């Protein structure tokens, strides 16, 4: 058991941090009533996944994947970080921005329409309209 913890705590600390952030984000999305807090929770959740991906491609003691000019030939790959997760996460960041932008625009419209951004208040008003 001890080796399991040593391996987990010391070796995979980044992943643990990512999991912690995921839990916080999901807690906010599921439990918090105000839509704004849900959107913030969503962004936390997405940043946690970005942390997770980046720590996958991390090499200890390696520098950024920019190969100095003309040195392409004598090259050792352990000197440079793995570029692939970073590219993927660039996409995920941009997608996160787009979704949050739309969510805020929707939130503004809902606020104009219902005067509140608390989910339960809005649902009450919807139920009243239905009746």
């Amino acid at each position, binding site marked *: 058991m001890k080796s*399991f913890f040593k*391996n*987990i705590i010391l*070796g*995979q*600390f*980044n*992943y*643990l941090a990512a*999991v*912690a952030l*995921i*839990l916080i984000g*999901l*807690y906010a999305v*599921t*439990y918090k009533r105000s839509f704004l807090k849900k959107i913030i929770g969503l962004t936390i959740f997405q940043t946690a996944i970005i942390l997770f991906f980046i*720590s*996958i*491609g*991390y*090499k*200890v003691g*390696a520098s*950024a*994947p*920019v*190969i*100095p*000019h003309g*040195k*392409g030939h004598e*090259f050792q*790959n*352990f000197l*440079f970080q*793995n*570029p*692939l*997760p*970073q*590219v*993927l996460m*660039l*996409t995920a960041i*941009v*997608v996160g*921005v*787009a*979704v949050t*932008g*739309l969510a*805020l*625009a*929707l939130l*503004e*419209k809902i606020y*104009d329409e219902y005067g509140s951004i608390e*989910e*339960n208040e809005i649902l009450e008003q919807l139920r009243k309209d239905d009746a």
Partner: protein
Amino acid sequence: MFKVSRLLVILLLLIFGFFLVSGIGELPLFGNPSNPVHKQAGNYYLEHAEIEMESPNVVTAVLADYRAVDTLLETTVVLLAGFAVMLVLFSTGNISKFEEVVNSSYILKISTKLLIPPVQLFALYVLAHGHHSPGGGFQCGVILGSSLILQALVFGVKETLNKYPPKRIINVAIFGVLIFYSIGLICFIQGGNFLDYSQLQSILSTTESHTRSLGILFVEIGVSLTVMSVIYLMYIFLITKGEVNN
């Protein structure tokens, strides 16, 4: 979502967390260079990017050439967000209704006048040097967008709107994606697969690796235009609640 007691939510999340941690235990150790993750594509990119594309910054190489489709789709996501925000906040009100008080002092105005051009110049530098140093289309677009927002903040939204009307800016965004798309289309017409920059060699008449790096540059220009205009648009629409569409 639904009225569920806080304890139950925490309990569920803890179970989910424990489930994730048990998965992490099996993952290859963090940070050691011989992880399976690096063997497949990672090392190939590091070895070949500089040779094939003359772009030391491997991330830009992968971003704009190896996995160019992801970036193209990403820029469409940005464009889509711009469309969506315009559609959602679309209201046929007129700008006069939007009252706004601009009390930035004289010193502030002059200093921003001096500050904005170098910011935009730096953005272009970031774009041009995307190959050699960390940078590229997205970063340049964000810096350009922030310079526009700075102007709106300091000089007031109404004045910025006359200089950069949203009608024009959305066309700029579409034009950005069009650049990216048309480069891919030209490669397609030249006979290669979509987004295969080596086909541009006959047009640009330079070595194959140089054509690829030029291809990356054009693509980065398209991306930065779109990102700049969509960030600016989002800011404007969120501030004026859409009363700007006349």
